């Protein structure tokens, strides 16, 4: 689900709207993900059980036995936090909620004021974090990391919610946590994939490229993707996948998190960009890709144009609805067989106000969301996204044959490999609109080389950081 691109809402605005629609559809669509099929623990028993991995030294952090009213700010249009809060109250009847909601853009503007007010939220959907942390408005969650054992979760899950003392993201203390984690990868048309002899997902980039060549030779459209300015350059998805296949995710994340002295113009990224350039030259993308918008790309893909498309699990519901049973999902392979998998992934970020009255209870809720079986089931059923949490907890199953099942399995693999990345489109406020999108379009139009593209984007990046 796209609100996970929290920091990129401005950048990926077009996508966000689509995702909103997609989410709305998933609630009322004709093929919704089914309600939990597995028996869930009876609420009564859960109440008594203090949740796992309590700190060995201090008393376990809970919501206590006295009545608590959690003051929360949720984002309008997304069901997940509401459904989770209902379930939480069912399991812990002493906790009730005072929920305010607002549009994401309004929240972006009002968050500092809300956090600084006399009745600061115990739990709030966070648009951005760095300035809030700098102003001391967000609670440092480090004590909960040790108390709940979040340090044993795959590190990449919480990476994007960490802010260092120098104000860069990606390391340092934890200031937020994700309600779930969206995941990107490659969707494929099962019928067309079978036609070109793909029986199992490719395990190396070479294998994937061989499939692209086969598709081209068979007269099929190998990849359906969007790259029009209105939606932003969707070729950034395969590009970043290629970057992570040929180089470490760390250097990509560092660049996104604006660590000093980092550059996108590295040797491995050049290799990645050159592969993308070859794909363009070989005609693996549609001839009119520079004019294809996000929604058009998805609709053309589900109508059978394109063997593959690069996108994220927020599209699961509409894929299952528009091409039922015919869409699969795999993680983009690594360069060498058995290499570690990586994917762009973003948490649905929630934080706690520095002055929150019920911080412990809010943190307990965040831990419950990631670890409670029913909560995880709700996350999968409503959002189609990975609920995160400890990697040894099973991810609840979705409907058999649904693409959500595929993407959840992929999510678990990527999570195990610690391969989560933020989006290169999120590095600065307008690096997507002013850097990646025009440069990727030029690459398609033959007006730019792979090397020139990386140099131009890096120059734009430095310019924006200096402005």
């Amino acid at each position, binding site marked *: 689900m796209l609100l996970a691109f929290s920091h990129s809402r401005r950048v990926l605005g077009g996508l966000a709207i689509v995702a909103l629609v997609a989410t709305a559809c998933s609630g009322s669509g004709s093929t919704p993900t089914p309600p939990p099929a597995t028996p869930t623990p009876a609420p009564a028993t859960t109440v008594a059980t203090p949740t796992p991995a309590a700190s060995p030294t201090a008393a376990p952090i809970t919501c206590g036995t006295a009545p608590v009213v959690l003051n929360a700010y949720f984002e309008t249009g997304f069901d997940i936090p509401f459904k989770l809060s209902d379930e939480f109250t069912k399991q812990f009847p002493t906790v009730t909620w005072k929920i305010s909601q607002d549009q994401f853009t309004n929240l972006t503007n009002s968050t500092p004021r809300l956090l600084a007010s006399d009745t600061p939220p115990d739990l709030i959907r966070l648009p951005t974090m760095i300035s809030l942390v700098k102003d001391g408005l967000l609670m440092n969650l480090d004590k909960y990391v040790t108390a709940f054992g979040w340090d044993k979760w795959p590190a990449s899950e919480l990476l994007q919610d960490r802010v260092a003392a120098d104000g860069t993201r990606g390391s340092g203390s934890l200031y937020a946590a994700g309600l779930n984690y969206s995941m990107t990868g490659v969707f494929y048309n099962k019928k067309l994939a079978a036609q070109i002899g793909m029986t199992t997902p490719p395990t190396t980039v070479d294998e994937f490229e061989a499939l692209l060549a086969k598709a081209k030779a068979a007269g099929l459209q190998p990849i359906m993707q969007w790259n029009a300015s209105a939606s932003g350059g969707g070729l950034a998805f395969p590009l970043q996948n290629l970057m992570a296949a040929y180089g470490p995710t760390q250097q990509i994340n560092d660049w996104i998190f604006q660590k000093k002295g980092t550059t996108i113009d590295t040797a491995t990224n050049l290799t990645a960009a050159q592969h993308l350039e070859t794909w363009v030259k070989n005609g693996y993308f549609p001839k009119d890709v520079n004019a294809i918008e996000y929604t058009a790309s998805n609709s053309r893909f589900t109508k059978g144009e394109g063997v593959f498309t690069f996108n994220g699990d927020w599209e699961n519901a509409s894929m299952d609805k528009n091409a039922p049973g015919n869409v699969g999902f795999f993680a983009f392979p690594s360069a060498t067989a058995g290499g570690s998998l990586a994917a762009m992934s973003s948490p649905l970020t929630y934080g706690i106000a520095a002055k929150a009255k019920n911080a412990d209870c809010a943190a307990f809720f965040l831990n419950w969301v990631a670890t409670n079986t029913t909560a995880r089931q709700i996350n999968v059923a409503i959002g189609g996204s990975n609920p995160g949490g400890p990697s040894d907890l099973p991810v609840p199953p979705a409907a058999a044959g649904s693409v959500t099942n595929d993407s959840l399995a992929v999510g678990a693999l990527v999570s195990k490999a610690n391969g989560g990345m933020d989006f290169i489109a999120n590095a600065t406020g307008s690096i997507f*609109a002013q850097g990646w999108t*025009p440069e990727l379009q030029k690459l398609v139009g033959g007006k730019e080389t792979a090397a020139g593209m990386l140099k131009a984007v890096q120059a734009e990046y430095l310019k924006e950081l200096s402005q």
Partner: protein
Amino acid sequence: MNAADGSMPETMIDRPDPQTDRQRQSRRALPSRKARREHLLGWLFVLPALAVYAVFVLLPLALTVWYSLFRWDGFNVPVWVGLANYENVLTDPDLLNTIFNAFRLIFFFSFIPVTLGLVVASVIRRSATGSLGNVARTVLFLPQVIPLVAAGIVWSVVLSLSGILNQSLTAIGLEGVTRAWLGDFDTALAAVGLIGTWVLLGLCTVLLLTGMTKIDPALYEAARIDGAGAIQEFRAITVPGLRQEIGVCVTVTVIAALRSFDIVYVTTGGGPGLATMVPGLDIYVLAFQARAVGVASALAVVLIILILVLILPIQYLSREKGA
């Protein structure tokens, strides 16, 4: 920013104002105290509108100029940078490119609609006076009534790879030239420009047609008796007689070209590359995505100045000789 640069020329168009003359005359004829009271009363009547104008046009305009002197992200404390933002606007090749694109659009938004509008209006006037003329006028004016965003969406479909334009081209054997018109570096700006032509042709035609009713039919009659053909009539009577209307058309369409936003935003978003990026869109991107409020404001001020520099001579020329 847009409201500011859009409204200024309108006041200029309305400048030749007979009412002020009449007021001046009546004031001279009346006793001075009463005149003063009337004067005050006049200001009172104007005050609400003036207040709205001041708050929503003049103040933002002044603030835009003020912001353009700072480096500011919209939240934190602004940093005074003097004229550095202007230097940036006038030296950054990408930003200059957007300004050049706006000038290229003048050809499609202004030159074609005005020339073609003149021709079409003459044709309608000469040979389609009855209901046919009304139908033609309505059809041509229709784009003015349709919201630009809706029109832009429809045009994106028409100009897409599988759109009706390419289908037609294929049908007549021109498959070789088919392409995604809005996604191709060579054609995107022209494609966007032609949508502008489509929108503004009707406006120009109707304005010019109205102006033609003002021209004394005896002139045409005389010309015909002298044996003038349609082209000679057009050159000797129609065009000179429409000098003021042409001035208005050029003014309105040049402004539309320089401050274009909606058509570009909806159809190409400034792409591919920066092939169709125009100042209006860039100001938006800079201010609300890059959060570079200072540079965005500087670009807006430069745009206002460019529009004024271009429009004032047009105003002067069209009035001077029409008077």
